């Protein structure tokens, strides 16, 4: 065969081979990105920077505006740590009954006392008459003496009745409330009677204890802490709540505000420390949860955002109280915190296109 023909043949085979390979081979040349599984978003540079050993997100001002990031200066707040407890407005019927019993006994006692005084006077006179003139019979004298002894015995009985009632009352309501009734602390009791004040039985959970020197707690009917009112400490209660099995105490509260009526259940917040803790109030919209902890983002300079963990947060109605880690005046992100979190963890956003 002609040599040129052979060369052509060889060339033909080689060129066909190369061409076929090249055309069937995707990897050749610059391919369309989607062909290699590279998504639109794969080449976005990271916005994470390192500032003094801390991870921070850098966003220029325009971008912050575009993505709707808003910040708010943190304001100071003082709170006391509080325990949650249950309360029930105390029914003072028992106390009123006690009072009326006491009044009855005291009335009787007064009668007996005056009778005894009269008898004793009479006895004295008869004794003189019997001794000096003996114009009084011994029998008469003995009768009056017996009368006096009877009165004394009745007085003793009434006194012991009073003691019993007191003991009973103290057993039921404690010494302070009993004293209000028995020792005639008229003002306090009158206010209870008039319904101006109420006694609230506060029951703590089994695990909780009332902090020492607690002077007051806060109570409220609707669970709103902000509207709660003060109730002043009276004394420990004698009976515990059979359901809660925790400590119980009496507190005195102004009934007019929340229109308390006997038997009503109320929420109770018990301050745990006598001194308040100062910190800042973080609005709810600033908090994001990640890895089991609450975090907030603060704007540390015009373009830098840093994430802070919140340790031992105190949850309030519209946000949380933070004692440590954040300062008054810190600019906390109130709109866009989740977006910043997503930016920080962008690597972990699942690519919805990759299906096994």
């Amino acid at each position, binding site marked *: 065969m002609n040599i040129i023909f052979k060369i052509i043949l060889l060339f033909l085979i080689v060129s066909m081979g190369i061409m*076929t390979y*090249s*055309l069937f081979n995707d990897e050749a040349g610059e391919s369309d990105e989607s062909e290699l*599984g590279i998504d639109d978003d794969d080449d976005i540079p990271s916005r994470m920077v390192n500032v003094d050993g801390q991870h921070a997100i850098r966003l220029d001002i325009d971008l912050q505006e575009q993505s709707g990031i808003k910040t708010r200066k943190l304001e100071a707040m003082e709170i006391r740590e509080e325990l*949650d407890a249950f309360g029930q407005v105390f029914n003072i019927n028992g106390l009123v009954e006690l009072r009326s019993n006491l009044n009855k006994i005291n009335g009787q006692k007064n009668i007996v006392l005056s009778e005894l005084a009269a008898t004793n006077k009479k006895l004295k006179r008869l004794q003189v008459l019997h001794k000096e003139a003996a114009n009084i019979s011994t029998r008469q004298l003995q009768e009056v003496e017996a009368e006096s002894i009877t009165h004394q015995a009745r007085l003793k009985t009434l006194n012991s009745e009073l003691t019993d009632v007191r003991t009973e009352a103290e057993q039921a309501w404690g010494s302070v409330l009993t004293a209000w009734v028995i020792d005639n602390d008229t003002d306090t009791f009158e206010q209870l009677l008039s319904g101006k004040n109420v006694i609230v039985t506060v029951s703590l959970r089994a695990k909780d204890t009332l902090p020492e020197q607690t002077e007051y707690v806060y109570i409220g009917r609707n669970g709103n802490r902000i509207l709660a009112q003060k109730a002043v400490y009276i004394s420990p209660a004698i009976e515990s709540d059979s*359901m809660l099995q925790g400590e119980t105490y009496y507190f005195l509260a102004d009934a007019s505000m929340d229109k308390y009526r006997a038997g009503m259940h109320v929420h109770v917040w018990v301050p745990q420390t006598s001194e308040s803790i100062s910190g800042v109030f973080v609005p709810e919209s600033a908090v994001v949860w*990640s890895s089991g902890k609450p975090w907030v983002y603060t704007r540390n300079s015009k373009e830098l955002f840093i994430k802070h963990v919140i340790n031992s947060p105190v949850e309030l109605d519209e946000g949380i109280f933070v004692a440590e880690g954040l300062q008054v005046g810190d600019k906390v992100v109130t709109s866009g915190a989740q977006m910043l979190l997503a930016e920080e963890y962008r690597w972990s*956003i*699942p690519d919805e*296109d990759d299906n096994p």
Partner: protein
Amino acid sequence: MLASFVRFSIRFRGVIIILALLLLAYGSYQVSNAGLDIFPEFSPKSVIIQTESPGLSSEQVEILVTQQVENAIGGLINLDYVRSESIQGLSIVTVIFSEDSDVYQNRQLISERLVGISDNLPPGISQPVIAPLASSSATILTIGITSEQRSLMELREIADWTIVPRLLSVPGIADVNVFGGDVRQLQIQIDTDKLHQFGLGVNDVALAASQATGIRGTGFIENSNQRITLSLSGYPVDETSLAKVILKRERGVNIYLGDVAEIKMAAEPPFSAATIMTEPAVVMMVIGQYGANTLTVSRDAEIALKEFEEVFQRQGIILTPDLFRPANYIERSLENITEHLMIGGLFVIVILCLFLFNLRTAFISAIAIPLSLLSAVMVLLQLGINLNVMVLGGLAIALGEVVDDAIIDTENIFRRLRQNRLLTKPRTVTEVVFDASMEVRGSVVYATFIVALVFVPLLTLGGLAGRLFAPLGLSYILAIMMSLVVALTVTPALCYMLLEKAKLSDRDPPLIRFIKPAYDYLLVLSSQAPILTISTTLMFCVLGLSIVPTLGGQFLPQLREGHYIVHTSALPGTSLQESIRMGNGLTRNFLEIPGVRSVSQWAGRAERGADTFGSHYSEFEVDLESLSGKEQQRVLDQLRETMSETPGILFEVHNFLSERIDETISGYQSPVVVNVYGKDLKQLDSLVQSIAEIMRSIPMASDIQLRSPPGTPLLQVRLKMDRLAQWGLQPDEVMRSVQVAFEGETVGRINKGNRVFDVTVISREEKRRKPEDVRKLPVRTPEGSIIALEDIADIRQTAGRYNILHHGAQRVQSVTAHVEDSDLESLMNELKQRVITEIDFPTGTYPEFTGALLERTQAREQLILYSLLSGIGVLLLIYIAIGSFRNMLLMLLNIPFALVGGVFAVVLTGDLISVGSMVGFVTLFGITVRNSIMLVSHYQYLVEVEKLVWDINTAIKGANERLPSILMTALVTALAMLPIAFDSDNAGREIMGPMASIIIGGMASSTILNLLIMPTVMLKFGKFKTV
């Protein structure tokens, strides 16, 4: 056999022509009634089973629901594999069946298996539902409603009760996915503080409510005369009457539902939220049925929507009917293609007239084109393949061959008839027509079969490429086969009828007369310097080949649909509210881009929807004004720029069809994927972490990502059994309390008019916002005391899983990576070796190394195998056609040079190599081989039949005789393609454009080769033996 066909056709020419006319008429009727779509059905044969599992976490969904469903469907016939995803509140099991299975049978089998499954599911979990059988492109229309006067609840009601039922009655609509708005339900919103006061638990309220709203049938009474139905009324049917339902009676005092709860119509906790141009809205996505025609169905749907227009206007509701309308693209494409075909057709006629210079012959050639294409379309329609862009593409690229068939025949008959008239003793016309027909017939048949064979690998392509391009291959093959039939029957019949008595000029047509001398001169020149000619050819080939490796590739070119779909994905656990807030920012930025007409967004998912994403996921419909392809690209670039500036999101921008194709591709998009299978999720997590560590230490790997990392915020409530015992509580009571308070329990239903609303017991909204609300949830003990949930459970914030994936019913955790340079194999080898040696896989766990590149490599190997097989078939056929091994090899020299023109065309147009371009090359190969066979066999004819000596004169004579048909074929093909190739970056031209430009470029080089180089090479090296 061929001879008898031709003879029959000439003899019964009247019958043949009437049949042809009938076929033309019926074919035109059929085509005008057939709907047009963009793509064939390209999704794999899959069935998606969804189970709504309200309130369950992803872990619970996986164990309690997904596993049950997977167990139920295991071992089905034709089942390829099963994969599943369990996310909060939803289980999705996707069952992939083999390609050759029947869609309806698959669904039937699955439904049968799912029948009894409810018994195995936890109470409150609804029966698994098979997602509606939707068409591949799925969306027919996206519409939305907004209003300044109406609440979102009213809007949602209008969508659910007015618009959706009407749309579902339109034939071809499978489903309507509704996003956004507030689903109205009657809510009994418990005030937990009041429960404390009254000593009641959450469960007491749920129980009372369910007893009050349970509707029971009451039967009938019957006596000897009549049967009287019993009907009970007066039970609570609205807010007021429900408020009077008694909850507890104590010392003669009643406590009513209304005392502890607010009872009102309120919004169900939402699955999704939506906006149109940042306004809160209800967005509806209309899904087409499998096999439904987008154009027809969307027009019908629009007619249905028109009915509401006036009423809505009066009610102050704004209906936006075209947030996205895929039909726009089809209409625009159709308009464009029709225009091009008209221009192309005009070109064809002009060329035929110019070259043949005889109206009759031009007519015969021209009539063969519609006849062949219409017959092919009819066969396709009979096979159940709808018309779509791919089918049209196949027909368009077959045009060259079809024209060639007709021209070769007509031109030869015409020439022989002219020669016959010059004879002193002319033969009969029948004989001349028959002989002239038969003279070229043999090689035409071989050429046709060879070209058909070249297209066979396209039919064997697997996966998406196969489903998309097989109809193209099929329509191409059918068109050339039909063209062969036409050439065997109609063309000889018409030639006989029209040319028998026609006045035939004995001279060549003027254009040929004008070209021939120049051609002769060139041919003599090139055959006198064969080495120069061949080396120039080789030089061009080398140049072309050196370009090929630098060409980029893509699956499909950018389609210019005038619409973009943007996906954004934030961190799992992002609320709907935040997704919408971020989305509104994006929407405002999108609207600032010139050319953007409307933007709508939805976040989350629709109930029963095909998409199953969490609240962190959003999709935007960005609809454009009517823009050119270039302008659309600018908008796309600007969209991407806007998105990349937005912090905290992953995003993707696609046009709709690419998006659908993307969603359809089963398998991985990432080049490298390592799956770890096992039982213990924590173990799997730590294993993939270790694999990710290894990957990070390999410099070639980049962008390493865990598929489903645990990181979603999760509030874990762990019951303390000893505390439960202390209070005498059952775990179920506590769980139910939590469920009622935070998930809500649907306790019954009430009707208002013909609308049915759920009655749900749930906590007040402000008591469902903070972890503290969970801690303080009141639980009533059997003894009647009220305790907080935290007294009996350990409540802690942890990180949960967004989803749990299964593959083949096994838990799988994946880590994916991209490859920096293209050396995938060495990366895979290193990775495999290090993973196996460095990581100790506990029993029951094992890794799998896979990825998009690996899958693609396997697919490519298969394609190469089929191509080789068909290549061998082609060689055999060429050998049979030519009968000489030497001449066959010489002929094959054609191919690289012909393809070189195509390569230059790619470079000139700046296109990337797509599957469409590959089809262009294949077509080019076919046409070139065909022309070469025709030339070589004509030389053979001259030497063998006409007994000419093989020298330069014979070579010039043969080439001269083939000149008109080769030139005509090339010009007709090229000119028909020209309008499509020109400005191909526009609607309807995207896929066919690159194909067309390759064919045009290739036609140029192939024609030069066939007309100049082939005769030269043949003259120098070819051998023809006289018989």
